[in-house]
Structures are given as C-alpha cells and as structure tokens.
C-alpha cells in the first residue's frame, strides 16, 4: 500500500466529512442540508461546522429560501471549490502513479 504525506493535500478538503460534502456537491448541482446529512451520515452540528469551514474558504456557497414557511438552505460548489476539488483528486491520482 502506498502512503504519502497528507500535508501535500488541501487542508480544507482533507477531512473525511468535508471531502464527503465536496464529493456530494460535485455530483449534484445543488443539495439541501437534509440531503447532505443523509449522504455524509453525520450529525446536524457536525455538518454545520464543516459546511461553515468550506463556506469560509470560498469552496461552497449557500442559497437560502423558504418553502412552506420553512427555511431551506441549499449548498453548491463555487468555481473555486470545483477547481480545488479537481486539484485534490489529481493530487491523489498522481500519488498513486508514483
């Protein structure tokens, strides 16, 4: 099994939950909080914390709206987020090829 220094990877994405969030959002254009929670399989609090970190890094954006008077937050990858995710995956692939 090849192993490598994790410091070579983007720190913002390199966390199991944040990587899962980015992977979900690269697959769908937009996803709401509940969908993300179901796919990432974590608690509301934990998910919120990681979403905030990704948002602060400019990797994701949030659209807030109301459906049947309930607030809905939809998350989507920004251009910066897509680029960072692509670079992260490329880095992993290069590491495997070495």
């Amino acid at each position, binding site marked *: *099994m*090849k*192993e*490598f*220094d*994790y*410091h070579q990877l983007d720190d913002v994405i390199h966390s*199991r939950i944040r*990587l*899962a969030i980015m*992977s*979900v959002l*690269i*697959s*769908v*254009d*937009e*996803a*709401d909080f*509940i*969908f993300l929670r*179901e*796919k*990432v399989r974590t608690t509301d609090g934990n998910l919120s914390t990681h979403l905030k970190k990704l948002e602060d890094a400019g990797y994701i954006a949030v659209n807030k*709206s109301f*459906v*049947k008077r309930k607030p809905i937050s*939809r998350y989507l990858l920004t251009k910066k987020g897509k680029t960072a995710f692509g670079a992260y*995956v490329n880095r*992993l*692939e290069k*590491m*495997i090829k070495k």
Partner: protein
Amino acid sequence: METIDPKQELAFIKKIMTDSRKSVICNGKTFILWGILVTIGLIGSYFSIKSNVQSVMNWMWPLLMGLGWVITIITESRSARESKTKTFAAKILASVWIGCGIAMTIIGFVGSVSGAYNPLYINPLISNIMAVGFLITGILYGKTWISLISLGWWAGAIVMFFWTGLYTFLLMSAMMIFFLIIPGVFMFKQYKKELITG
C-alpha cells in the same frame, strides 16, 4: 508524519459520488397524470367518432390538454422548490419532456387544424415522440427498462402508420396505459422508496 492511503481516499470519493448520483430524478407523477388524461381523450375520441358526435372533440381535447399543462406547471414548480437536490440530469430531463410535450401539442392541434395531414396520423406521430422521450429518460435515469419502453412506442408507431383506422385510438389508449401510466407508477414507487430510505 501522518500518512493516508490515496487509493482509499479515491475509492471513498467515488462511492459518495455514485451514491449521490443515484438520486431519483423523476417521480413518475407527470407520466401518470398525462397517461390518464390522454387515455380519457383517446377513448372519448373513439366513441365520439363511432357515435358520429365528433363535436365533442372540439372541447374535450383542449380541456384535457389545458388541464394537463396547468397541473403539470403547478406540480413541477412545487416539486422543484421542495426537491432536496438540483441535478443537471434532472434539468435535461425536464427540458426533454417540455420539448416533447410542446411538439405533441402542436402535432395534435395545429397540425390537424391546418389540414397538413390526416388526423389519423396524429397517434403514430405522437408515439414516435414518446419513444424519443423514453429513450432519453432511461439513459438519464440509469434504468435500461425505461429506455426499452421506447421500442414499444416505436413498434406502435410503425403499426399505426401502416394500418390506419379508428382502432388506433384504442391501440394508443392501451399503449398509454402500458407504456406511460404503469411505468409512471413504478417510478413513483421507486421515488417513495427513496424518500423513506433516504
């Protein structure tokens, strides 16, 4: 130095992406609605022609189609607002069926009113468009059985082009039930199942 396995990381990303893409993009409700409305219209047309009261068709089809479009616009815009995700595949699927719906409405009304063709050719023409719609839906949905339904629509179109007649209204009704309503029910069940299992 902390180390990780890149292969495991990539496998994890792939698994999450595959799982997210599995989300059902079509709930089948629109198929059921249009299948019922058009079947009513076709059977109504068959009996109105047989009974020589063809004037019924002058109001029946505009009423059914108008009702279909109004309900579709309301329910689909509501579904889009309430949907957990917005995917590119869902956008394409919606565009395909809006395009098919407009084309079928034009074929059904404008084509026959203008006298461009015999109204008996409306059914096979519409059947062809349904085939294209199902072929694309199956590919986007990732279900071969949905794509295969298009073969039924195309076969029906060939039969109706070669052997025109009043019976085509009944044949088209049966096709609406077996190739639109029943698949719609299966899709709706799949959608419900996904809502429960997440």
